[in-house]
C-alpha cells in the first residue's frame, strides 16, 4: 500500500510538478477552444453542401467524410506533421493539430449536422421560402437552429470526444496536459504527475459525462 501511494499518489512530486501541469491544462483548454470551433466550422460547411441536390457534389463529399472517418486521427496528425516538411512546408505542432482536427472532427460534426438538417421537415423550408426568405436565409434562420436543437446530445458527445482527443497532440510535442505530465514523469521517475493529469481531465470532463447520461436517458424516455 505504501509502495502504491509512493508510486502513484506522491503528494510531494505532484506539488513540485503542479506549475507545469497547470501550464499543460491551460494549453489543453486553449487547444480545445481552437479545434472545437474549427471542427464545427468544417462540419457546417460539409452539412450545408450535402443538402445541395447535385449528385456530383454529394458523392465526393461522402467519400471525403468517410475517408476522414476511416483514418485514425493520430495517423492523420502524424502524416501532416511529419509529411508536410518533405514538401518544404515547415509547420508548427499547433498548425499540424489545427489542420488535422479540422479534417477529422469536421467530418464527424458534418455527419451529425447533416442528420440534424434532414430531421427538419421539408415543409419548414417551403414555408420559409414562400415568405420571401432566400435559400441562405432559410438555412441560417429556420433550418440550422432546429437542426442543432434536434441533435444537441450528439453534438455535445462529439465535443467531449474532441476535447479528449486533444491529448494526441502530445505525440507531436505540443505542450498540453498529457505532454507536460509525461515530461514530469520522465524527470522524476514517478507516475504521480500522470495520475494528477488524469484527475485534472476527470474533474474537467465528468460534468459533461453526467450531462450526457441525463440527455441520453431523456431521449430514450421520449422514444419509449
Amino acid at each position, binding site marked *: 500500500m505504501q*509502495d*502504491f501511494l509512493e*508510486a*502513484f499518489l506522491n503528494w510531494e512530486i505532484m506539488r513540485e510538478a503542479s506549475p507545469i501541469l497547470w501550464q499543460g491544462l491551460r494549453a489543453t483548454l486553449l487547444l480545445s477552444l481552437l479545434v472545437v470551433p474549427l471542427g464545427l466550422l468544417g462540419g457546417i460547411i460539409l452539412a450545408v453542401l450535402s443538402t445541395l441536390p447535385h449528385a456530383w457534389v454529394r458523392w465526393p463529399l461522402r467519400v471525403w467524410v*468517410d*475517408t476522414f*472517418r*476511416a*483514418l*485514425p*486521427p*493520430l*495517423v*492523420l496528425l*502524424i*502524416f501532416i506533421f*511529419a*509529411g508536410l516538411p*518533405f*514538401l*518544404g512546408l515547415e509547420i508548427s505542432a499547433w498548425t499540424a493539430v489545427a489542420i488535422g482536427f479540422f479534417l477529422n472532427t469536421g467530418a464527424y460534426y458534418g455527419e451529425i449536422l447533416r442528420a440534424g438538417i434532414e430531421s427538419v421537415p421539408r415543409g419548414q423550408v417551403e414555408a420559409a421560402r414562400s415568405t420571401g426568405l432566400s435559400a441562405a436565409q432559410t438555412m441560417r434562420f429556420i433550418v440550422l437552429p432546429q437542426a442543432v436543437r434536434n441533435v444537441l446530445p450528439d453534438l455535445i458527445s462529439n465535443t*467531449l*470526444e474532441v476535447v*479528449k*482527443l*486533444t*491529448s*494526441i497532440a*502530445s*505525440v507531436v510535442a505540443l505542450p498540453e496536459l*498529457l505532454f507536460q505530465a*509525461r515530461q514530469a*514523469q520522465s524527470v522524476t*521517475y*514517478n*507516475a504521480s504527475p*500522470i*495520475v494528477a*493529469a*488524469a484527475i485534472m*481531465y*476527470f474533474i474537467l*470532463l*465528468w460534468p*459533461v*459525462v*453526467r450531462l450526457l*447520461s441525463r440527455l*441520453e*436517458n431523456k431521449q*430514450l424516455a421520449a*422514444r*419509449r
Partner: protein
Amino acid sequence: MTGWERFTDSFFNARVMAQYLPKIIEGFGLTIVLALCIIAAGLIAGLALAVLRALGVRPLNWLIIFVVDLFRALPPLVIIVLLFFGLPSMGMELSGFASAWLALTLVLMAFSEEIFWAGITSVPKGQWEAARSTGLNFLQALGYVVLPQALRLTIPPLTNRTIAITKGTALASVVAVPDILGAASSGLSHSFNPSPLTLGALAYLVLFFPVVLLGRWIETRFAWKR
C-alpha cells in the same frame, strides 16, 4: 526536381515502399488482432456490467456508474500511458500491447455498458413482470425476454462506438507497439522518406473504409422505429 517529382519522390517512392511493405503488412495483422481482442473483451465486460446493474443493488450500481463515468471521461491515450509508464514503478511490467489492449478494453466496456443499460431500461417494465409471473427466474427473464428485445436497439450505437474505439488501436504506436502506425513511423525515421506513412494511411483506409460503410448500413437497417 520539379514540384511534382519532389511530391511523388517523397510520398509515393516505389523503392522505399517496397522495402517497408512487409513491415506494414505485419503491422496490419497486429492491428487486427489487437482490435479483435479489444472488441471481444470490451463488449463482454460491458454486457456483464449492465446485467450486474440490472440486479439493482444500490452501492454496486453507484460503483458501476462511477467506473463507467471514469472511463468515459478519461482520454484513452492518458490511460494507455498511465498503464505503460506507471505500473513499472510498482514493479508490474505491462507490455505496450497489453497496456493498449487493457486501456481500450476498459473504454469500450464503459461505453458499451451505457448502451446495453439504455437498451435494457427501454424494455417496458410489464415485460419483466409478465416474464417473472410465468415462473421464469431473474436470469431467465433477462436472457429470454429482456435482452433479445434490448440488444436489437443497441446495435446501431454499439457499432458506431466500437468502430470509433477500435480506431484507437493506432494509439498503441505511442507505447512502441509495431502496429500499422508504429511500423510506418519507424519506416519514416529509418528511410527519411514519408512513403511508409502513405502506405500506413492506405492500410488504415483498406481496413476501416469498409467498416465505416458497414456502420452506415447498419444505422439505416436497424434505425429506431418510432
